[in-house]
């Protein structure tokens, strides 16, 4: 009963004209970013982050969250029509979605993707609403060692599931942590690594670094690669967005299973939307009576991953709001946004920022409804946007990157930081370094340092505090297991047979989006 009362209160906040406009703007921009290959939710949120500094916290998070789950909807359009995932989480949708489009069933594929996303997104939001409060009660029992261990776990999960060498991933996490230490040490009041540059005394801003790492480096990475756009043949003939009764019968269980799996995977730190869509696709194939038909253009192959990635995007908010742990880099950017607006996520978040939490939850219901309305009738418009060539988009993205980073402090030094981060991101990515752990560690760094130092002070300098508290030990043990598993998985991947099958699957993503 209390939950319904809270939700109604949240709806009152979300339905305020300002918040409603930001929700609409967020989901529209999100769909646009999802549709256009070249800049995903990370780049988009990074670009928008500085522009939200002047907004109130609720409006800012409603906008950024809208962008995030909006991209999950939009990504499917490009996957189905062009066989190029507009967004990384839509890679699996290419397999059957594009085949359906080639068979003249693009409308049904787009329709079930939109309906599945809506059902999963709404169910995920209900899950978020129901689970957040009880989890907060558990998290209230956590002390600094448990929080430190949780953040280590988040970093390890992200490092172990990302592609490439695990050592390189860990190096990135250490570098990100190191960068977060630039500025004044909050506990001792002493400057660190500023070398007399006044601008650095308050630390490096997340905005310019994220814009550089994900926005500029993405443009630079795309420069050498030509994305083949062949939407014309399919795009002009799309019709019948409403799935038939048979389509619904075939899709309802994949949507249900995709929702549950996606939500659960989304709540795990490091889980994320990509992993959710992979697992749900594999699961559907296992459950199916005709697994051999997967990849030939069956509707289950679209319904399951599309539902899973939307449910995961809602599930990802649970560890963020209740524990203050971002489950993915996008959540890390949202954590940064919350902190900039003076709202520290964690066990006290729900009691201290009740209006913000319920306002954002309520806006997700509204946003999902907006997306359903946006996605079906506006598909012809999105198809037209797909025809904008990369040679026009790229200069515009760079211009927005410059303006986005300048707007952080109205300081040109932030533009310089952004450009250096962009070049560094490009060089690192070219050398098979994942920049996601760097960004996550940069956001978590100050909290990790505080938790670590507080733990040591609590134990009078004994490191044994991390090995004597049961929850801390359990979390660190899981982190260790995951690290070992990550190493083992990479060793297995060096097997030439597995490499070959991966490269077959990679052919799906002609737009240069790589599988993990």
């Amino acid at each position, binding site marked *: 009963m209390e939950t319904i009362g809270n939700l109604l209160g949240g709806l009152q906040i979300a339905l305020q004209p300002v918040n409603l406009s930001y929700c609409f703007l967020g989901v529209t921009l999100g769909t646009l970013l999802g549709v256009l290959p070249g800049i995903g939710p990370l780049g988009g949120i990074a670009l928008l982050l500085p522009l939200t500094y002047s907004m109130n916290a609720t409006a800012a998070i409603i906008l950024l969250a809208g962008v995030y789950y909006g991209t999950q909807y939009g990504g499917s359009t490009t996957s189905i029509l062009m066989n190029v995932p507009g967004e990384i989480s839509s890679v699996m949708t290419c397999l059957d979605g594009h085949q359906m489009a080639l068979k003249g069933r693009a409308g049904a594929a787009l329709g079930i993707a939109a309906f599945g996303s809506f059902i999963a997104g709404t169910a995920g939001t209900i899950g978020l609403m129901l689970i957040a409060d009880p989890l907060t009660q558990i998290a209230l029992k956590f002390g600094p060692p448990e929080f430190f261990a949780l953040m280590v776990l988040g970093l390890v999960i992200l490092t172990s599931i990302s592609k490439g060498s695990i050592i390189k991933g860990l190096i990135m996490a250490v*570098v990100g942590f190191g960068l977060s230490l630039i500025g004044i040490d909050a506990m001792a009041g002493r400057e*660190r690594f500023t070398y007399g540059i006044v601008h650095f005394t308050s630390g490096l801003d997340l905005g310019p670094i994220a814009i550089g790492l994900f926005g500029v480096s993405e443009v630079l990475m795309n420069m050498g690669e030509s994305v083949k756009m062949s939407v014309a043949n399919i795009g002009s003939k799309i019709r019948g967005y409403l799935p038939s009764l048979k389509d619904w019968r075939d899709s309802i269980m994949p949507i249900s299973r995709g929702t549950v799996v996606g939500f659960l995977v989304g709540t795990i730190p490091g889980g994320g939307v990509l992993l959710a869509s992979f697992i749900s696709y594999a699961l559907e194939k296992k459950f199916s009576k005709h697994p051999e038909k997967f990849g030939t253009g069956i509707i289950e192959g679209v319904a399951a991953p599309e539902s899973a990635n939307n449910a995961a995007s809602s599930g990802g908010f649970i560890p963020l709001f209740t524990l203050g742990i971002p489950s993915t880099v996008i959540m890390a950017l949202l954590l940064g946004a919350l902190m900039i607006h003076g709202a520290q996520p964690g066990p006290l978040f729900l009691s201290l920022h009740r209006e913000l939490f319920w306002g954002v939850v309520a806006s997700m219901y509204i946003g999902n409804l907006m997306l359903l309305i946006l996605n079906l009738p506006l598909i012809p418009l999105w198809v037209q946007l797909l025809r904008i060539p990369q040679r026009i988009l790229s200069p515009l993205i760079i211009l927005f990157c410059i303006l986005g980073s300048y707007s952080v402090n109205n300081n040109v030094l932030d533009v310089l930081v952004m450009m250096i981060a962009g070049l560094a991101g490009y060089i690192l990515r070219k050398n098979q370094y994942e920049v996601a752990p760097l960004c996550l560690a940069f956001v978590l760094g100050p909290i990790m340092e505080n938790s670590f130092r507080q733990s040591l002070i609590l134990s009078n300098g004994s490191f044994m505090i991390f090995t004597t508290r049961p929850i801390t030990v359990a979390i660190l043990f899981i982190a260790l297991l995951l690290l070992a598993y990550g190493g083992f998985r990479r060793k297995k991947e060096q097997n030439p047979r597995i490499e070959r099958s991966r490269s077959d699957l990679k052919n799906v993503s002609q737009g240069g989006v790589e599988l993990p």
Partner: protein
Amino acid sequence: MMIYADGLLWLLLSVFLGVESIRLGLGVPASPGSGFIPFLLALCLFALSSLLIYQTFSRRKSRHEGPRLGADVFCIFCPLLLYIPLFKTLGYLLATFPLMLFLFRVMGTKPWGWVLFGAFVSTLLSYFFFGYILNLNLPSGLIG
């Protein structure tokens, strides 16, 4: 030697971080100083970079020389760096218009008419949107 470059770079960075941490003061575990965490990070980075060098060494026969970084990327990056001082002195409009001209041209838009049109419209619209609608304090420079 190039294949060890990244490992060596991280190794050097770890040494630098370690030295700086000691300069900041490590404190004692019961009361950690400002350099305590950076020192632990330096140790981690040292260990990881050593492992990376070892890994590269043990696989050097099966690995290629590493990726080539696109020269065109650096061609774009240098004008971007030049843009920063111009942004402040010439102002947003005068500095951004030539930058956009350059970016549109170098990224593949061929007819000069389209390049000029794209640069003009994007500069003006972005100035209007960010400067007026979002109230961003863009430098007016020589025009102001």
